[in-house]
């Protein structure tokens, strides 16, 4: 493959949701690859992975590096790290993108350390600088800001990316890719961490990331009862309820409903935002919403400024009226 630059995407496929993240990253990698004249390579580690080789090809990868072996059946940081480290040292990719799933967030930092390179966490945007560097856009601490991060010298340039940040390319099963099936390295380390038991759990199974309608509530809902009504609206609309951190901490919503930098990154077709100020830590998770309707009594709130429709009124009142009106109108 000569001096062809390569952008790698780690094939995270353990469940449906992680697999979507991989597809989203392949899509973004295609976009970046055009700008630096690189190929897009998906790395698939595991056992019986043909399904993913096909899928990643159909979704835009130019090359697939597959290491398929019985020993790799279970996700294990120890073995996956060794396999990946070996591949990287041999092939020297320019960029590696990894989904910020739980596994990705455990795996990527160790890989970066082992490769003596930088890693930025939870990016909400990626770009290429004039110098051809990977521009990693990550929410930065405290203030209402985003930070632009680069890895000037070390290679590969690495980033983890929050699920839902990018859109996958529709599949095309006519596409071809160069599939390289590679043998397992011979010096695989023993697994120091033993998987005693595991079970796929239904809990937290449903994710808000793919929901097309989200109703979010913040501190401005005022109390638990008002907040509860958001569920009624969400039910009418066939959507999910999200919450800001104060709403979660007040016990109005479960932690799994948290939307933002520390929680979910949503990209609904329509987002209703009730009584939310729009702090960057929250809006970092809603940037991909197509259409935003915000209700806040303060027209100056940041959430109102980023809304398509900003309703200046009491959140509880609007919510009640909206529910009443929708009940009259909805026809299946």
């Amino acid at each position, binding site marked *: 493959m000569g001096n062809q630059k390569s952008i790698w995407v780690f094939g995270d496929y*353990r469940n449906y949701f992680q697999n979507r993240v991989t597809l989203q990253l392949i899509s973004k990698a295609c976009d970046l690859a055009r700008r630096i004249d690189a190929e897009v390579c998906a790395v698939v580690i595991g056992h019986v992975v043909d399904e993913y080789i096909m899928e990643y090809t159909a979704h835009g990868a130019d090359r697939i590096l597959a290491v398929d072996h019985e020993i790799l059946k279970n996700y294990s*940081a120890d073995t996956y790290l060794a396999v990946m480290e070996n591949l990287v040292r041999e092939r020297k990719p320019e960029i590696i993108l990894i989904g910020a799933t*739980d*596994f990705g*967030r*455990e795996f990527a*930092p*160790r890989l*970066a*350390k082992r490769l003596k390179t*930088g*890693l930025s*966490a*939870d990016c909400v945007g990626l770009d290429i600088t004039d110098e051809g560097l990977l*521009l990693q856009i990550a929410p930065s*601490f*405290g203030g*209402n*800001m*985003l*930070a632009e*991060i*680069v890895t*000037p010298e*070390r290679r590969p340039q690495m980033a983890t990316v929050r699920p839902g940040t990018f859109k996958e390319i529709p599949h095309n099963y006519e596409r071809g890719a160069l599939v390289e099936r590679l043998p397992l390295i011979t010096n695989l380390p023993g697994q120091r*961490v*033993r*998987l005693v038991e*595991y079970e796929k*759990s239904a*809990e*937290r199974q449903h994710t808000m990331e793919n929901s*097309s309608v989200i109703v979010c509530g913040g501190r401005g809902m005022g109390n638990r009862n008002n907040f509860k009504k958001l569920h009624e609206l969400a039910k009418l609309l066939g959507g999910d309820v999200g919450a800001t951190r104060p709403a979660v901490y*007040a016990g109005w919503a479960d*932690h799994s409903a948290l939307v933002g*930098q*520390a929680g979910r990154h949503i990209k*609904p*077709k*329509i987002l209703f935002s009730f009584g939310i100020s729009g702090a*960057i830590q929250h809006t970092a998770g809603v940037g991909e919403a*197509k*259409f935003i309707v915000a209700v806040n009594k303060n027209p100056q709130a940041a959430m109102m*400024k*980023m*809304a*398509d*429709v900003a*309703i*200046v*009124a*009491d959140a509880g009142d*609007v919510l009640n*009226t*909206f529910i009443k*009106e929708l009940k*009259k*109108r*909805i026809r*299946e």
Partner: protein
Amino acid sequence: MLNLIVCVKQVPMVTELPWDEKRGTLRRDLAAGMMNPACKHALEAALQIKESRPAHITVITMGPPAAEEVLREALAMGADRGILIGDKLFAGSDTYATSFVLAQAIKKQCPDYDLILSGCYTSDSETAQVGPQLAEELDLPAAAYIEKIDITGRTLRVRRFVDNFRETLEMEFPALVTVAMENYQPRYTTLAGLERAFKEENIVSLSASSLGISFSTMDTHGSCTKVRKVFLRKAQKENIFLKGPAAIVVNEFLKNHEDKVSSAIGKDIKKEENDNG
């Protein structure tokens, strides 16, 4: 006796944090910083281990001189010793550099540890990288986001919920875990306990030179990432404002956007001709 190390970090106080209300007084004592919430969960996990068997807890932090306060708070909660690593050379370190420095201090000050606990992430930088990178630096078996710890002899058994899987993992000491926020609710620190802790002398301060770290060391082990700039996120929307009594704004919104809503929810909400809503 088990030798436990807990990595803690001081982060800027954010008024939204619930424990802010409970500990109003404490906060004022601690001025602008507070112990990162996730680190507190990690410390609590260590304290609970210590309740069930003989153990010694070292808390370690890298930060400015003021970060000594979080070590004192940790002592007040029940830790035995604090290590403060501070040097201008380390300012602005990314996780790559931070984990290197922490590893050097651990090798120097408490090489005979059994278990290192870190928070799962910090509330200021939220990278969740320092724990795993420290494990890599010290070549330790590790597990992130653990919710439960059991120890039998030299074997550590942890439970966690990651990516929709409930997992039970086992490894031998020495090891490292990052502690999730689900469990191990931190205990309350009394003001008296805190006052006492501020008089204690078991805090060690380390500088770059005492760790044998120089500018040239930080050339190879220092930050790999560079922050180019920080900026405000801006909106590129039409941004229509509606104002007035709820009944009026809701109707106006629906009148103008019923198509949008209908298509998003996949149901028809258009008003019928003779609908008397």
